[in-house]
């Protein structure tokens, strides 16, 4: 089957019932989406499908028709996405394992709502972080929003 991933079309020979996460990681070697729970509860595997954040562990690869964006596809060449840069400026990551998913969730939020307030952030950012980077994630989203609006 064919998947559109980060702007290019990839051929993948997978059981259509295989979760998208494992097709990306084990069959296509795209390691940005992480395995955290397998039940859509933590968001470490978040990818964008047609711009919408989806938990790739809970989407079968056979059901995907839209364009997939993973963390590998958000920067343009050497230039980091504004949200990635904000993550560095606020020194957000600790272990970093959830951050690919967090960044994609934040990009989706800012595309939908360029000026989110704290409640909007709380509502949209449901991904789990065991290191407790939430306060810095919040600051980074505000910083990115400011930058994107400037």
């Amino acid at each position, binding site marked *: 089957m064919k998947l559109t991933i980060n702007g290019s079309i990839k051929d993948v020979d997978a*059981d259509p019932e*295989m*979760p998208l996460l*494992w097709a990306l*990681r*084990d*069959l296509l*070697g795209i*390691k*940005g*989406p*992480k*395995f*955290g*729970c*397998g*039940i859509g*509860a*933590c968001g*470490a595997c978040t990818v964008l499908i047609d711009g919408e954040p989806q938990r790739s562990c809970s989407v079968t690869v056979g059901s995907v028709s839209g364009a997939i964006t*993973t*963390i*590998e596809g958000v*920067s343009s060449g050497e230039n*980091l996405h504004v949200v*990635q840069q904000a*993550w*560095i400026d606020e*020194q*957000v*990551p*600790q*272990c*970093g*394992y*959830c*951050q*690919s998913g967090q*960044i994609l969730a934040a990009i989706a939020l800012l595309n939908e709502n360029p000026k989110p307030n704290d409640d909007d*952030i*709380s*509502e949209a*950012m*449901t*991904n*789990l*972080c*065991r*290191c*407790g*980077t*939430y*306060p*810095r*994630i*919040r600051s980074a989203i505000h910083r990115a929003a400011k930058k994107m609006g400037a």
Partner: protein
Amino acid sequence: MGKILRRTFLIGSAAIVGGVAFGYYKYTKPYDNPLEDELAEGEATFDPYVKITSDNNITIIAPRAEMGQGVSTTLAALVAEELDVDFEKITVEHGPTSFAYHNSGMLEDGTPFPHYERGVVSNMMRGAMGVVSKFTGIQATGGSSSTKDAYIKMRQAGCAARETLKLAAANKLGVDVTSLKTESGFVISGEIRIAYGELAMDAAKLNPPAEIKLKPKSEWKILGKSQKRTDMLAKVTGAPIFGIDVDLPDMVYGTIRMNPYLGGKMFSFDASKAEKMPGVIKIVDMSGPENEAFGGGIGVIASNTWAAFKAAEAVDIKWGKSDYPAATDGINAVLAKALKSGAGDSLRNDGDAETAFADAPRPSVVEAEYYVPYLAHACMEPMNATAWLKGGKLQVWAPNQSPTIIRADCAYEAGVEEKDTRVHTTFLGGGFGRRAEVDFCRFATRLAKHADEKPVKVTWTREEDIRHDTYRPVAMAKFKARLDEKGTLAAFDARIASPSIIASLMGRAFPSLSPAGPDRTMIEGAFDQPYTIANHRVTAIKAPLSVPVGFWRAVGNSFNGFFNESFIDEIAVKAKIDPVELRLGLMKDHPTAMGVVKKVAAMADWGAETIEGRGKGIAFTLSFGAWVAQVVEVSIIEGEVKIKNVWCAVDVGEALDPSIIKAQVMSGIVFGLSSAMGQEITFADGAVEQGNFDDFDAMRMGQCPNIHVEILQDAEIMGGVGEVGTPPSIPALANAIYAATGKRIRTMPLSREIDFVA
């Protein structure tokens, strides 16, 4: 001396045995530099921490597991400061597995003395542990010890390399070495600037000067200032840096499914259905030797992880039972019995608590019983390791906290020599103590024996990870205090029953050694707090429970902090004294402790008029050498608790990187509050009831309070930071709920008795 020896603790006794066997003479001989074996063309090394290429690439080895705590950045900064290079230009690597990177800081903190006790005996024991560390060469990350351990030795490594480069330059230029300076990776002689890379090969042939002098603090350019962490770019671009991302040619994928009755055997299994599933290569019996603590189970080798997961589920297995009580009620009954009648170790026994209570009139006595459940670590990255056994050589790639022990363990498992075994430490998607264990690496190695000389990446499902953890111990405690006629605290007696972590760990890693003596981890956070009370006894009682328990962030402090600081709050209520005032009075011999309590009280505007429906609670814990006071503020919204603010004052002595310290303290607070709000591991029918983030969750963004951290630097001895935010957060929250509602909750998690705003 006999008494002192009897007070030796478990890690110490095991390690001393190893050390004596090793021979004292070895202590003076430094380990070989492990970097010698792996230099690239044109690369030179000066000591186990520095590599420089002739084209001026400078690599610093930070030999501790990076699990989010920023240790790779701070350790590299110690070397870079003395080496005198620009911090942005260096490369940082974890480096090889080697005894040269032993952690003496961790063992020194394991001695059974309070941090502030610096007498002859306690310092002698700490010194002995430094020797033991060097003997046994355990390279490990834990106990919030990395920076303390590295503070002098890694600066010396940078300094010695810098001075050697200067010697090479002096030879080259024919000038006196004292006329040379260094700056940003150059040796400078008047107008001449020579890059370190140009000198590296020559310098590596020289002996470093016999005496070196570290820079005075006033000349620091990097240390003491917040640095950009060296791992940020990889972590915002999704780089494949974690164990679970390891990718090797011809690699196959695997998983395991071990007995849910922890430690129980596997009687039989039927893999006929699973073997026929697409992608499945092999189903393997994972049962180990008779004395192995992990019990039986199966492993799957497949062409992808998902196929392995599905096949593991499809195997039909007959399990043997475990030997602990099948349900949490039964486990609690064992604790209650130990608490009531068990003999214990009183690591604090000041005055005469027994007599002080004997004639106490009833109204002057405060009593309370507390309870905490088992807890899982639930690292974001589930347990995994990749092993490759080929031609009598073994390689293991793993996100781990203990590479030298893992090397020995996996070599034994594979039946190969340690010298033919390499352990590669990747980045860790969380550790929290879980990755100090050996099981995930041993299992990967066991599966690799069946993988036809191909590398096999073994990933656990989240359910396997939660249900086969080495849990934070369950614990039950009874606290008793006597107030005298004036309402001052005259006597304090605490009994704490829990299973011993050290005994459990030894059973897993070294089943042939039998643990004996007191276990400090059962009682830390209670016996070692800087409170002066005339009659003060704290006793730990080992409860015979075989559920595997291990190091969980802050270890014993995570529950004893809750017990002790909740009880201090209860005494304040009974004595009608403000809880800040009560603590300041008890800690009057310890100005560092008073400093953080006063600071946090000011930050939180303690004593200001209470807003209706809100409450503030305070707690203090000294753990891992850091003095930490916190105030939590809650708001009650339609009967549910919302955590609004946390204020924290932390004194770590020398603060090497303020941004990283604040991040760590914040992280520890979220970790502690998460556990208090709703986490518990319970048993039914012999198995763990929870399995994933739907029933073992943690705090989410919307629940996270504003967290305000201030760093003080008055402590005389440097403290750790990775775990120290956790212990006071839990009692401060419980005390805040009491202040807001009048409801005293003595059992964790708090969600058993009160709801939190989702």
